């Protein structure tokens, strides 16, 4: 009975502030539509500047070959390495290829020649992928040159052919990877920030005292805060799934029921976390900053953008202890690979433990005395 009135109050408060209500639904939908379009990590256009000191037909052939590989974009040719370095300093080029003087002549005469690549290595991914592509193109070019110069193919010794296929995403499109992740992130931000602000707002407004003098039990109070946000969260999640389907054409490969089961447990854990922050904070600014701190960790360490395995062990432990890490992993597994309930049972177990732990902590830390 008491719960009914409490819920009535919470829902009324939620619906009263139309601006915040609109923000809850519009912001994630709009961001989900826009942001993944901007998050394109396909390394396709590597800007390259060439210092061709040879000007021979061979160096021209090499340049044409690189241009036709599709990964590189020639921005200019430089007369010297120094000039090329300027392009890198101005952020125009990512890579310098220097073909030495007498390249063609010496290749025939001495049997080998060096070509030096200089990569702007501040952005590690781009640097290593770029240098990797270029080396592959050069090796291929080298074989052709060898065949041409020798007139007949040289027996290289035994050859190992490597064939490969990318499962679950054969064309290697980045959107399949990023859209489900961003959906989780947006849901987390809405749920996390709003629940973190909620109790502390009552503290600042003074209405907390009024609730404290009622016979409402501690767990009832927390539950009353939880339910409206949980319902809103599930609506936001469904909206997000709709967007991924309609805009990006991503149909979940696995079962929707499992996805919803996981999302519902995750939301309980997340909201518990938000409410916990709220019970610890004195004012809204504090709550928001603490929430921001954790959101940054959630965003950058959860494997959303970078791979988890590459982090040091202690960082992986932190990642394991954040609920969002498991949710992102599971959403990708279910949506892209069609994993079943038994594939994700460990992650579900983690999430249930988080949900119980965080909420118990929040209830315990909420003191009815001021």
């Amino acid at each position, binding site marked *: 009975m008491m719960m009914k009135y409490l819920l009535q109050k919470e829902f009324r408060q939620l619906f009263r502030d139309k601006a915040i209500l609109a923000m809850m639904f519009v912001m994630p939908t709009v961001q989900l539509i826009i*942001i993944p379009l901007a998050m394109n990590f396909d390394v396709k256009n590597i800007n390259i500047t060439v210092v061709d000191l040879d000007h021979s037909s061979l160096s021209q052939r090499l340049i044409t070959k690189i241009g036709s590989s599709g990964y590189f974009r020639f921005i200019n040719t430089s007369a010297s390495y120094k000039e090329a370095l300027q392009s890198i300093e101005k952020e125009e080029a990512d890579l310098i290829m220097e073909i030495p003087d007498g390249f063609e002549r010496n290749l025939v005469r001495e049997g080998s020649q060096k070509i030096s690549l200089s990569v702007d290595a501040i952005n590690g991914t781009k640097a290593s992928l770029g240098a990797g592509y270029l080396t592959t193109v050069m090796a291929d070019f080298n074989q052709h040159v060898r065949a041409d110069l020798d007139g007949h193919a040289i027996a290289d*010794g035994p*050859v190992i052919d*490597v064939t490969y296929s990318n499962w679950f995403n054969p064309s290697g499109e980045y959107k399949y990877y990023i859209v489900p992740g961003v959906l989780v992130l947006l849901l987390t931000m*809405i749920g996390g920030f709003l629940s973190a602000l909620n109790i502390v707002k009552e503290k600042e407004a003074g209405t907390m005292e009024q609730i404290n003098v009622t016979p409402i039990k501690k767990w009832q109070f927390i539950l009353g805060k939880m339910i409206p946000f949980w319902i809103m969260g599930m609506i936001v999640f469904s909206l997000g799934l709709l967007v991924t389907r309609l805009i990006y054409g991503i149909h979940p490969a696995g079962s929707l029921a499992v996805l919803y089961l996981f999302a519902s447990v995750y939301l309980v854990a997340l909201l518990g976390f938000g409410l916990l922050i709220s019970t610890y904070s004195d004012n809204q600014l*504090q709550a928001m900053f603490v929430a*921001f701190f954790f959101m940054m960790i959630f965003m*950058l360490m959860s494997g959303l953008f970078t791979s988890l395995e590459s982090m040091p062990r202690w960082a992986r432990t932190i990642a394991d202890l954040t609920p969002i890490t498991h949710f992102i992993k599971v959403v990708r597994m279910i949506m892209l690979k069609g994993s079943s309930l038994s594939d994700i049972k460990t992650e579900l177990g983690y999430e249930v433990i988080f949900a119980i732990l965080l909420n118990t902590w929040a209830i315990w830390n909420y003191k009815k005395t001021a």
Partner: protein
Amino acid sequence: MKQLLVFVKKEFYQVFRDRRTLLIMFGLPVAQILLFGFALTSEVKNARIAISDNAVDVNSLQIIQKIRASSNFLVDSDPINPNQINTVLKKGDVKCVVIFPPGFGNDLIHLGNARVQIITDGSDPNTARTLLNYLTAIIADYQKEISTPEVLPYSIITETRMLYNEEGNGSLNFIPGVLALVLMIVCTALTSVAVVRERELGTMEVLLVSPFKPVMVLIAKAIPYLILSLVNFLLILLLCVWVLHVPILGSIVLLFLETILFILACLSFGLLISTITHSQQSALLLSIMGMMIPTLVFTGFLFPLENMPLIFRLISNLIPARWYYLIVKSIMLKGLGFEYVWKETLVLTGMTLVLLIISMKNFKTRLS
């Protein structure tokens, strides 16, 4: 001038009274730089990989041995059979499976041609591609080892130099990025709340009836945050140098001046938010929740800006953090001078002025 001093003092008192917020304000960026400086990396290490060896001969075992030796991979100890591949990949821990067909070594030695099949988990396309590159390199290396030792004629050898980052520090790119992101969000949120709170509490009216110009009220509000943010920045720099071992190659004075400019831009942006919102909650939601992902994406440290559609590249120009990130990268990591960052500096200055003018105008009309 004396009046201004009095007001600044009042603001400082207010800031210092709330110890907890102060602690959070300093603790948060420091903890974040440390965490991300150590944890984030763009390399792929310790990727779990499963092997389906249907040949079990000298050659396949030698290749597996080589893969095991690489720090990029963690090879699962039990070999799997081909019909388990789907199950293994669906569990999500294994990123890649290498399959040796039956008779691999035999084919290799007697026919001179053998085949290895690699299946990657394409749901993470970048990792998949990187792992494939690593594996191909290992196998090519092995192939070279077993082929005739004589040097092949007409070899083109590529030498790769990593500029600015010879040790291949995978987190280098994230430091200026996180720095710009954190400074931007913290400064914007602090100012917007500082103004909105006074309005919520009604004390803004009190300030404005004083014989002090409204502009001065805002300047006085901005000064403590400017100073605190600079202290914060200094702290982060010290951590970068001593703990993360990221050197500052360029001029520190220039870096500081640029940072002041950037903080001013963020403060003006916060001011603008404060003039268009009515409550602390909406100011906070707008400046943190609303700005967080756009800032993260459009700063360009995670996703290359040049890959984005034109409209997004245009939008990214509106984000102050994007310009600051470029400046910090050039000065701190590349050691370049002012002649390389004057364009970015000009943009930031222009932004600050425009933001200030708009918010001043809003501020005045609101109170009349």
